[in-house]
């Protein structure tokens, strides 16, 4: 059945430092409730909102990165409804209807799997406060309000119903988060900085909205559940109701919040305290000129300037932190190709294995570079390096220290190696005979020497000694 999914994503502009309409600090996480508030963001009588111009700049940057069309004159509207998390009982937002003009319309995001997801509009608005229930939403005796979040700047990104699978929804969200991180406007790793509502309809049928989804993983789950639920309804000959549903994370089901009949009338009208904002072409050009390097440009540069294999470059440029790690390695003097191979290959698989994120303090470019240098200087073999890297990621210790502590330094002592080679030759007479005709047997002999040294023997030297010895053996 034809599945249509549209997403509405709210991203906090976490790098603004201040709120959207006042000078309160937006860096509230972990602080006491209601300590980042002022008369303006509390909407006290007599106060007036004052637009934070940096928010406009960030909004334009997002729109440019999403190939969206920036509107020459945008307006702010009031969205009126009563709810205890809204200090003024209206939200200053934008509106794509009536005379309302949001900051940008249209645009698209190309997924790595070759699908293009179209954007409908992008708008700027203020975040409401946070309701803190003592217990669950149903059973709480009381609810506390933390206004620290009230008035934080949000960009709302609304997609067309272009997404076809729950998996695609997740890929889109990841991609979007990456783009926002590249732009430096929003830190997606902060709790609650990105929130998502999803619309879903099956076979051109009724649209259901799912609200309050906390993570990308949960979006995928919620949509999966909803597809199953709607299919089952259809199979039973029941109709899907147009309604808003809540994703209950603990039970992993959606539950009905309200049906169409009770959906609010927001009574949008132009915010009289904020004049329409003229966004000139020069302004847009200036923002464009100051945009940081975005993924596709990064990829090209890695390939062209640093000779990184295309495959590696594509992976490294996809994610801001990964590209930062790579660029830091190069900056510290690592060979770009070697560094890219190690990051894309072993490092990423170890991180998955250890369930570590790139932000973990144990993941350090300095350590990676040190390890690469140990290989380059012939002090450890590639095989030992893998062990060292894994250990370093587990413990946070530097590769040098690991090598020293565990005596992993390569054995380059020729006399010692000669003795070992002789030993191996004595113990493997059959292989020695074969080796003169068969390269595989040569490698077997080299491997035996490595085995005796637990991989520490200098592979180049060992190979040389084995071949020398073979050439010295007289054929009887």
């Amino acid at each position, binding site marked *: 059945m034809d599945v249509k999914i549209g997403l509405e994503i709210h991203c906090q502009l976490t790098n603004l430092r201040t709120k959207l309409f006042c000078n309160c600090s937006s860096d509230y996480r972990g602080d006491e409730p209601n300590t980042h508030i002022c008369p303006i963001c509390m909407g006290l009588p007599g106060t*007036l909102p*004052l637009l934070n111009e940096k928010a406009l700049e960030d909004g334009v940057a997002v729109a440019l990165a999403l190939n969206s069309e920036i509107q020459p004159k945008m307006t702010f509207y009031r969205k009126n409804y*009563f709810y205890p998390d809204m200090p003024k*009982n209206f939200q200053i937002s934008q509106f794509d209807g009536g005379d309302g003009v949001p900051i940008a319309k249209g645009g698209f995001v190309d997924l790595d799997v070759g699908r293009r997801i179209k954007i409908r509009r992008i708008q700027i608005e203020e975040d409401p406060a946070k309701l803190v229930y003592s217990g669950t939403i149903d059973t709480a005796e009381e609810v506390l309000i933390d206004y620290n979040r009230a008035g934080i700047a949000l960009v709302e990104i609304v997609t067309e119903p272009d997404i076809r699978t729950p998996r695609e929804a997740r890929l889109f969200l990841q991609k979007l988060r990456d783009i926002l991180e590249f732009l430096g406007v929003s830190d997606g790793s902060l709790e609650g900085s990105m929130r998502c509502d999803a619309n879903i309809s099956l076979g051109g049928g009724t649209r259901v909205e799912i609200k309050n989804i906390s993570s990308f993983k949960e979006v995928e789950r919620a949509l999966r559940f909803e597809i199953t639920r709607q299919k089952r309804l259809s199979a039973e000959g029941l109709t899907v109701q147009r309604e808003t549903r809540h994703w209950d994370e603990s039970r992993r089901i959606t539950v009905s919040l309200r049906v169409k009949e009770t959906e609010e009338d927001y009574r949008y*009208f132009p915010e*009289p*305290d904020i004049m329409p904002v003229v966004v000139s072409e020069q302004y847009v050009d200036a923002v464009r000129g100051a945009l940081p390097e975005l993924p596709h440009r990064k990829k090209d540069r890695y390939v062209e300037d640093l000779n990184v294999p295309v495959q590696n470059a594509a992976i490294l440029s996809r994610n801001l932190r990964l590209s930062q790690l790579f660029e830091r390695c190069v900056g510290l003097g690592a060979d770009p190709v070697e560094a890219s191979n190690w990051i894309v290959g072993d490092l990423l698989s170890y991180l998955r294995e250890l369930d570590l994120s790139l932000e973990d303090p144990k993941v350090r470019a300095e350590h990676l570079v040190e390890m690469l240098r140990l290989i380059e200087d012939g002090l450890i073999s590639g095989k030992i390096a893998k062990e060292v890297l894994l250990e370093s990621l587990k413990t946070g210790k530097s590769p040098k220290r690991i090598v020293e502590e565990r005596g992993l330094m390569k054995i380059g002592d020729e006399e010692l190696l000669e003795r070992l080679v002789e030993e191996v030759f004595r113990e493997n007479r059959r292989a020695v005979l074969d080796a003169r005709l068969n390269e595989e047997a040569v490698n077997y002999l080299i491997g035996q020497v490595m085995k005796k040294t637990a991989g520490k023997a200098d592979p180049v030297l060992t190979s040389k000694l084995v071949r020398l010895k073979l050439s010295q053996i007289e054929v009887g």
Partner: protein
Amino acid sequence: MARLMEYSFKEASIEEHVAKLIERISRLEPEIHAYITVLEEQALQKAKRLDDALNKGVAKGKLTGMTVAVKDNICTKGVRTTCGSRMLLNFNPPYDATVINQLEAQGAIIIGKTNMDEFAMGNSTETSYFGPTRNPFDPSRVPGGSSGGSGGAVAAEMADLALGSDTGGSVRCPASFCGVVGLKPTYGAVSRYGLISYANSLEQIGPMARTVEMCKLLFEAIAGHDPLDGTSIPEELRRPTELGSRTERRSKFKVLVPAQILGEGTDERVEKAVLNALSEMEMVEFEVRSGDLPSLSAALPAYYVIAMSEASSNLARYDGVRYGHQSPWKHDWDETYSATRAEGFGVEVKRRIILGTYTLSAGYYHKYYVKAQKVRTLLITEFKEAFKRFDLIAGPTMPILPFRIGEKVKDPLEMYMCDVDTVPANLTGFPAITIPCGFIEGLPVGLQLIAPPLGEELLFQAARLFEEELSLRVPRINR
């Protein structure tokens, strides 16, 4: 200036001046009830400080020692600001409005917070939770509204100066009914920061005084760009624009009297008094012509749609959660909010909230709000056209004389009709002044002059001529 010297500074010291004023307030206040809060101690202390500064020769404010009565919808730090409502009975703003800071900087003394129609909704000061203010010329009559307390305080000489707010005529109406001068400045000329919003796109804080000169002085003290108000006109745009360039006095003032503001609904005696005053002025420096401004007839309904729409949204914040009146918890949010608002707001406020909610609702927004905005645009265009040929637009400020307390409260529509001549200045954002132009049976009649944007100087010049030429015999208010 004569009046100013005569009253304000004939005392030996500012402290003496303030003490006499407080004495006068305590004598007249029981009858007039112009104030919600009188700041006796605070004012006396400030007076002492100013006297000290004067003695040391360091006082330099334009308003040094002058007492200002401030409408109770303008926030004063640490002094309750009620908007004449039970909802904000104990609201103590943690900040001062920008105009208050400006007054302080100029050495003015805030003498008290004045009575007003609840949330500035009304033109009789009868909807105040604190009871009505009475007209000093006839205490059985209303002082006008919504800045009736400010009008009454100035007229009865219970303050040297007063601030009101004008959303649809709320400064000019009480100024007219109380026989004083009142100005509705150009939209954006005076900061609205700290003015508790009723209808943001229409309202301005405005000065009231017994003379044009004092009114001008107060206006100059509060005008200026305020970075806290996004609708405040930037300093570089305050130089007269193309339209405002006629702030230089011509050989004669060309005045337009639109046919639409006379006749039906206007008291014949008022009309006559205004036209008499204008024709008297023709002897001097005025050239008066009648003409048409057709859109004026649509101004009143457009005004009420916009004002009520904005009000319904602005007043949504009074839910009792963070400040103000709160009803005890009633099992869910909606019911608790409803109870709080039902108890906290008066009838007129509720009426306007409901009407405003209706006009903004889905399906009615285009029929009412959008249409009202179109009328507004049309009106601006017509006014701009008129100002290509005329310096000023003139007519009565109020179509009627001050009515008796209780006379109109039962009929809101009749009450709304009183605003017919004042609302155009709010819809267009153009400045307008009212000055007394005559008395009928001891009751004052106001004449209104409207100028192009930022044409306040032009208004003061013309008004001063009226003041000089008409030399009105003001009935004594000396109780």
